[in-house]
Structure formats: C-alpha cells, structure tokens
C-alpha cells in the first residue's frame, strides 16, 4: 500500500492522466504532435516488416472459425478454376497488369486536372474499432493530410488522416470516422456516405441524410459530390445494394458496396492535386 501513496506513483498517475487528456484532445481537434510523428517515423519500417509476417499468416485464424465455410468455398473455387484455367492460364498475369495500367491511364485521360502519387500499403492497423492504412510515402512525395486516395479503377478508398516525411496514414470510407458528400449518378439526389459499425463488419457503408422522397434504387452508382473540397466531384464511391427508410430521422438511406476492393488492396493512388468543385 505504501507504494500507492508514494510521490512517484502520484506523479506517474498525474502525468498519465495529462498525456491521455492532451493527446486525445489534440487528436480530436485535428492536431498531430511531433512526438507521435517521431515515433511513427521510427516504427513504420519495423511495422513494414512485421506486417509482411502478418500477411504471410493472413487468414490462418479463419481456418478455426470458418472451416466448414472455407471448405465449401474451396470446392466451389476449385471447380471455377478448372473451368477458367484453359482460357486464361497463359496470359493472366500479363493481362491483369495491363488492365491495371490501362485503367490508371484512363483515369488520367478522363481527369486532366488530377495529379497522382502512387503509394504502396506497408501496414494495415486493423484494430477493433478502426481500419488505418499506413502508406510508404509521405510529405517528401507531396502527400499531405486530407488528400483523397483512390484505387486503380478510380474507386474512392478514403483520405489521408496524418502524414509524416516518409509515411502517411489513411482511413477508408467504411470507417466510422469517414463522411463523404455524395450524389446518385442517375437522379442527382444527394446525401452523405458515412461509415457504419455493423455494415463496416461486412465491408459496406451507408448513404444517409437523404430526403424521404429521394430517387434512389438498388444498382444506382454513387459518386462524390465534391462539396467540402476534400474530394473531387465525380469519383465513384460504390453501388447501392439496399434502400431503406430511417423512421427516427425521417430520411431515406442506402447501403453502399464500395467500388474499390478495400480489403485486398496492396497499392493505392493519392490525389495530390485536383480542381476543386465550386457549387453554382
């Protein structure tokens, strides 16, 4: 008991409470500290290594919990592979690479105002309540906070939340901290795409705050509205898989399947420059 009354313990407790309060407040108000930046600068290369180990072990735990499902899925996939193998065996790798590069070129040609910075995902802190990607490029490559990140097929992935000299952190659109101004391509009905806890578990997000008579249907494509200037107008967010009505808010909402394959990403493109949308 004497230890808990000692000066050392009381000072340690006060310092800890102060650390918790100061750093939480700084983070909530959008300030990043030099201490955190320094720690990330040192740990990012080590993280890259340990993440490589993690990737090698990827999915092992699911053998325990989803064995039957995986077994069935495996049989189905084997059948599919056998059917497809003859057609694509020789040129598959080359074709995929070619497609990816062509899509990148198409995006560049389609949006002349876009400037890209390709970046590899070197770490993925898939915590219990958030998913943060660590990218292997940072301020030295022109990447900064709040820049949008997209996939090779021009699907929106998320935005940069923090950047250091050689690293940057990004959160995805399925994260609960994310909100993106959006509209329905077909009807121009607008809303906000936000992360939702339960949908996020299935890799989906939600388009909320739509008017009760908004024209939206399953299969509609959802694009970024450009309002707020964080994202350019017209990036593909995803497609509608379900439309419902929120009784409490008296608004319509839709479940969105992201266009970009967020779970299996290994590289992304950071939009370092684009023409800001001005509402008429």
């Amino acid at each position, binding site marked *: 008991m004497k230890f808990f009354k000692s000066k050392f*313990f009381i000072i340690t407790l006060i310092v800890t409470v102060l*650390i918790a309060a100061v750093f939480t407040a700084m*983070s909530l108000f959008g300030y990043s500290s030099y201490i955190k930046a320094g720690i990330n600068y040192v740990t990012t290369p080590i993280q890259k290594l340990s993440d490589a180990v993690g990737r090698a072990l990827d999915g*092992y735990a699911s053998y*325990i*919990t989803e064995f039957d499902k995986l077994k069935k899925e495996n049989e189905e996939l084997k059948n599919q592979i056998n059917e497809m193998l003859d057609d694509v065996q020789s040129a598959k790798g080359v074709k995929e690479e070619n497609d990816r590069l062509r899509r990148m070129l198409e995006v560049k040609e389609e949006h002349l105002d876009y400037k890209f910075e390709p970046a590899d995902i070197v770490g993925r802190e*898939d915590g*219990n309540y958030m998913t*943060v990607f660590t990218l292997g490029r940072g301020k030295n490559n022109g990447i900064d906070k709040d820049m949008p990140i997209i996939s090779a097929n021009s699907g929106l992935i998320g935005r940069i939340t923090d950047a250091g000299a050689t690293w940057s952190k990004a959160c995805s659109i399925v994260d609960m901290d994310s909100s993106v101004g959006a509209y329905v391509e077909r009807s121009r009905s607008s809303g906000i795409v936000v992360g939702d806890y*339960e949908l996020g578990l299935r890799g989906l997000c939600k388009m909320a705050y739509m008017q009760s008579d908004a024209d939206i249907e399953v299969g509609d494509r959802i694009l970024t509205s450009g309002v707020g200037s964080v994202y350019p107008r017209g990036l593909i967010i995803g497609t509608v898989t379900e439309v419902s009505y929120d009784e409490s808010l008296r608004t319509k909402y839709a479940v969105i399947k992201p266009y970009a394959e967020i779970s299996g990403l290994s590289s992304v493109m950071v939009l370092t420059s684009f023409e800001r949308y001005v509402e008429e």
Partner: protein
Amino acid sequence: MQKKNAAAVMRMILTAVYTAAAVLLQCSVFPHLRLFGAIPELTLCVIVCVSCWEDEKFSCILAVCAGFLLDTVGSDKFTLSPLMFLLSACVSILLAKRVFAGKLIPAVISGGAALAAGAVKTTLILAAKGAPVNAAILHTALPQLLYGAIVFIPVFLLSVLHFRIFRNSFDLGRLRAGARA
C-alpha cells in the same frame, strides 16, 4: 551486488523489448489472425504479467510507455491506453505483492480484470463513435475478451520462464518480504 543489479537491469531491458514487440505484433500481425472478428489485447496481457514479477516503479513506467506506443502506432484517436495499462499494472502489483503470496492467482485475477476493462473500453469507444452497444459487445468486445484470455495463458507462462531465467537473490528476498507482509 553489482552482479545482482546487472541481472535485474538485463531483465528489465529484455522486458521492455518484449513489450515493444508485443505492441508491434498487436498492430501488425494479429490483425491478420483475427478470431471471431476481433484482435486480442496482447500488450495488456504482457503488462499484467510483467507487473506481477517486476519492480513496481519499472512496471508503472513500462505500462504508461507501452500504452502510449500502442495508441501512437495504432493511430488511435483516443489516447486512453496509458491510463488503462497503468491501472491494470497497479491491480497486478497490489494483488501480487500485497494480497497474495503466490503468483498464479493474482496474475489470473488481474489479467481477467484487465481484459474485461479492455473490452469495456472498446465498447465505450465504439458507442461513442455511434455503434449500437449490443452489437459492439457481441461482435467486438466479447470476442476480444475471449481471444485475450486465450493469448494470456502463453504470455503468462513465458513471463514465468523469463523471470526464472533472470531472477536473482535480491528478487527472491523482496518477494518473500512481500509475501510475509
């Protein structure tokens, strides 16, 4: 005396290295080894076990540093881990050195309490972010607690092994004095 101190210092340095490795494992490797959709509080388990064996002051400092490192590497908006780890270390110290003479019971009790506190923290943060409490408990907090309990066993056994390899007569005398008290 110098030899005894050298052994204790060596053990403390290794303990700090293990804890840093636990933080990196929790942030990089365990997300790929999810069980029932959750990742375990590996660093918390390490802190609880270390606090049962190690010097009180060292345990407290290690708990705060590990918590801060975890929240920084994990890019958590809420820097609550230092406080939670410090309180968990205190429970371990109190049980291991004051209440019980043996080490297994206090480690299990404080480990259980710390993991439960971790699950409560996760639920509260998820609720603060707008997730339904029931779903947060069912899909994340409960699996996290169970997975943490599974991970706790090998961590505790390794900590026992580590202490046995690096212990010295100074530690034994201190433990006996603690048990008598």
